């Protein structure tokens, strides 16, 4: 930017009419130069339909960039932009069969007559960013790494139905399954990321977690990795020779920024995107000249979960929550709609059960215990919890009192904790709030060391994700059913849902399972996640998928007439 133009635009400094001393002049020039910033040198200019730089003020740095280990948000974003899958799940996130899936690395696929194998025809144009072609051997290698117990990938349990991958020819990997299931295509197409064997194949599996080379992803996506200054900055650029066409933006800079500074950076135009803008400051976006709001429903839901077992003697039933009448009474005593309005204003979405509504199996018609404090009181009375001295209910000398864990990192959940505490108090229930940082909370949750918690789940688009959280099979080290809720009728219904090839039946079985869970009330369903993102007004976004806002980031663009200095740096095209 031209310095003089910038100065005249906002600078409080005006040229003096009277002579000033040399020392004063030097000081004033130095101050004005520092405050006004500095113009950039001319780089390779960017013009036309493609170009521009987007700075993403991220909530954290990436934890891992090697796909088998990726489990954090930033790691997933980089993984999904740099690497590719065989096929891409469609915007409806349909997981049964291959309906809705679009070709990616595989141009097409052929099912075996018995449906126990699928032969994928790789796109012969597909190249890794180092110029090497993608081969069937890379697909076989990727499966081997993901499923190797020595690697310890969190994705491995999701690939257990894949028996092996064989190489028919250099462009035809054949994926063999152990059994025919409705989601076998989804398992391989959505969960398996294709990595270059020639780059990573020589590293022993047990060294992959700390190997320097796995910090430098080499994929086939429309963005390519440039560098990662851990804790400071991660840079991706458009792969200008990509077989599917280059990304429209030239450059994506991911920089971890503390929330207060991130909001300021987005509002002042220093950064271009923030995925979770502070809710209490969201109205500022409406009047901001730099950024605009994007309200995005999420594939996550929040709840107040009740541990079914005693946190102190973990094999014993919980002295309070093992009684379904108490759980239902607590559910009926809270004004979910009022709390939603209190925390989110007009932007919140009520949860309808153990699922996010954005998925195809979501069902808003299920019967949730109604808000009825009189009925809640009667239910507690009938369960033997009578109001004692001080207004707290007591049964056999034990007060109706428990601890509620809330993560200090989530403002909505903290607020919900306080609101729940207040509403339970009116019922004669004493709640002690325990605010914990995410690491401490995870440790307590994984050790089942809690009475109740305000938690959130982000399941897969498939109902099989629900099994991890709410079925008996999800209890223990290989699952995530931390409330240790168990109902064999629910297990059977979820099994039926996940083995159904008919989407209508799948939804019907899922709904029946969800209704049973709701009736058992192991949790109070609070809200479906809705976030407000902030994006710079010069950026044109593409349709966003509910599970991944970045899924179509390669199609985000900055019109030529809206570009600023950092958009005009340009890129030197890659020759392949």
């Amino acid at each position, binding site marked *: 930017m031209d310095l003089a133009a910038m100065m005249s635009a906002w600078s409080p400094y005006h040229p003096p009419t009277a002579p000033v001393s040399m020392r004063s002049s030097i000081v004033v020039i130095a101050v004005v130069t520092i405050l006004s910033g500095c113009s950039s040198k001319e780089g390779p200019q960017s013009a036309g339909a493609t170009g521009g730089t987007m700075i993403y003020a991220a909530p954290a740095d990436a934890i891992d960039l090697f796909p088998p280990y990726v489990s954090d948000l930033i790691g997933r974003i980089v993984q999904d932009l740099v690497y590719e899958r065989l096929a891409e799940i469609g915007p409806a996130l349909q997981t049964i069969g291959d309906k809705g899936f679009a070709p990616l690395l595989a141009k097409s696929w052929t099912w075996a007559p018995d449906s126990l194998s699928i032969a994928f025809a790789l796109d012969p144009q597909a190249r890794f960013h180092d110029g090497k072609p993608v081969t069937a051997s890379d697909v076989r290698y990727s499966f081997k790494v993901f499923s190797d117990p020595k690697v310890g990938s*969190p994705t491995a349990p999701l690939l257990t139905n894949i028996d092996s991958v064989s190489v028919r020819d250099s462009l035809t990997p054949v994926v063999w399954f152990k059994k025919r299931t409705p989601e076998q295509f989804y398992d391989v197409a959505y969960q398996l990321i294709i990595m270059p064997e020639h780059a990573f194949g020589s590293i022993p599996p047990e060294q992959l977690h700390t190997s320097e080379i796995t910090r430098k992803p080499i994929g086939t996506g429309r963005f390519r990795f440039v560098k990662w200054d*851990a804790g400071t900055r991660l840079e991706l650029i458009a792969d200008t020779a990509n077989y599917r066409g280059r990304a429209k933006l030239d450059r994506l800079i991911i920089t*971890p920024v503390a929330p207060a500074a991130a909001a300021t950076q987005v509002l002042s135009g220093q950064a271009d995107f923030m995925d979770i803008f502070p809710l209490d400051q969201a109205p500022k976006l409406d009047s901001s000249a730099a950024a605009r709001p994007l309200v995005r429903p999420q594939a996550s839901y929040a709840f107040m979960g009740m541990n079914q077992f005693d946190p102190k003697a973990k094999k014993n039933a919980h002295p309070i929550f093992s009684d379904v009448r108490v759980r239902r009474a607590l559910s009926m005593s809270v004004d979910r709609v009022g709390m939603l309005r209190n925390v989110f204003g007009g932007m919140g979405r009520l949860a309808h059960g153990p699922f996010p509504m954005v998925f195809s199996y979501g069902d808003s018609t299920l019967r949730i215990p109604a808000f009825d404090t009189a009925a809640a009181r009667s239910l507690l009375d009938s369960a033997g919890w009578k109001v004692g001295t001080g207004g707290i209910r007591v049964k056999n000398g034990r007060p109706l009192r428990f601890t509620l864990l809330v993560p200090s990192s989530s403002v909505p959940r903290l607020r919900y904790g306080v609101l729940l505490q207040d509403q339970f108090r009116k019922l004669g229930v004493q709640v002690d709030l325990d605010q914990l940082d*995410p690491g401490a909370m995870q440790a307590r949750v994984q050790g089942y060391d809690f009475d109740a918690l305000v938690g959130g789940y982000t399941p897969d688009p498939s109902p099989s994700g629900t099994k991890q959280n709410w079925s008996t099979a999800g209890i223990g080290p290989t699952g995530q059913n931390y409330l240790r809720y168990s109902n064999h009728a629910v297990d059977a219904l979820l099994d039926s849902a996940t083995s159904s090839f008919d989407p209508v039946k799948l939804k019907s079985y899922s709904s029946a399972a969800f209704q049973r869970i709701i009736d058992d009330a192991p949790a109070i369903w609070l809200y479906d996640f809705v976030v407000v993102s902030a994006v710079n007004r010069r950026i044109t976004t593409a349709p966003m998928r509910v599970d991944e806002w970045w899924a179509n980031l390669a199609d985000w663009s900055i019109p030529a007439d809206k570009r600023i200095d950092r958009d005009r740096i340009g890129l030197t095209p890659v020759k392949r």
Partner: protein
Amino acid sequence: MRRLFVARLAQSLIVVLIVTTISFFVIRSAPGDPFSYDAPNVTPAIREHWRAQFGYDRPLPEQFARYVTSAAHGQLGYSFQLHEDVSTALAQAIPRTLLLTGVSLGLSFILGLVIGVAQAVRRGRWFDRLSSGVLMLLYSLPDFWGALMVLLVFAYWWPILPAGNIVDQVLHDYMSPWQAFIDRVRHLVLPVASLTLLTMAGISRYQRAAMLEVLPSDFIRTARAKGLPERQIIWRHAFRTALTPMVTMLGLLLPALLGGALFVEKVFSWPGMGWLAANAIAARDYDLVTAIVIVGSIMVVIGNVLADLLHVAIDPRIRE
């Protein structure tokens, strides 16, 4: 002098060892570990596998013995959060923090001393009263709140300076050396201002008190009786004498500045030791936290030793 130096060095070594041991056990006693971050698809079994992979399932004394052995060989461990050796991470972060705290320390001392002297000379007058009130307000502000206010005013309400980071994330690499220098200075202004404002307030309070003790002294009265100019009396005689206790402050200020840097770096996303420490503690990045504590304690010890030596150098009574 040499005996004093050797004795202080030996004491310092013991202090660093004790601090290392305490930090090693304290961070590992906190709930959670490097693999307890919130990730929907990571099951407890996978987390257990990773813990075993990196030896975090071993008894704590065994882990400590391994750590001490490695540290003695100059290997401070591996950072899970940054995916690099801890020594590499520290090598990048330490100069950034030294720059921030160094500039801030220098400015704090210059401004604090000048203001303190001016207050003492004008004791009881409007300048003294007004500046004392303002400085007391600054002194009582929490570090992070002061930093947030500075951020709000100069990066949002009146957006003339960048809101965080160490340089422009995109254009810095394309700037000429002069432009790159200016860019660095612009990014330095707000964090330095935050740290300086808070530190300066304390220094000026001490300097004012020290000057008020010195000004009624006999040698000042003698200097006035000899007809020396007031400016010379203040700056050559009173100021130099009042400076001696401030040297001790220098040693004490270093830990305070490092503590302040933790908040200021976090608010301004300044990737120095404070930023690293805040993130490492949240992520339970054991080796990184321990190494930061070691380096921090070494820096504090060096500051104290330097203060002692300076004290000896400028005060002949101690030398004797």
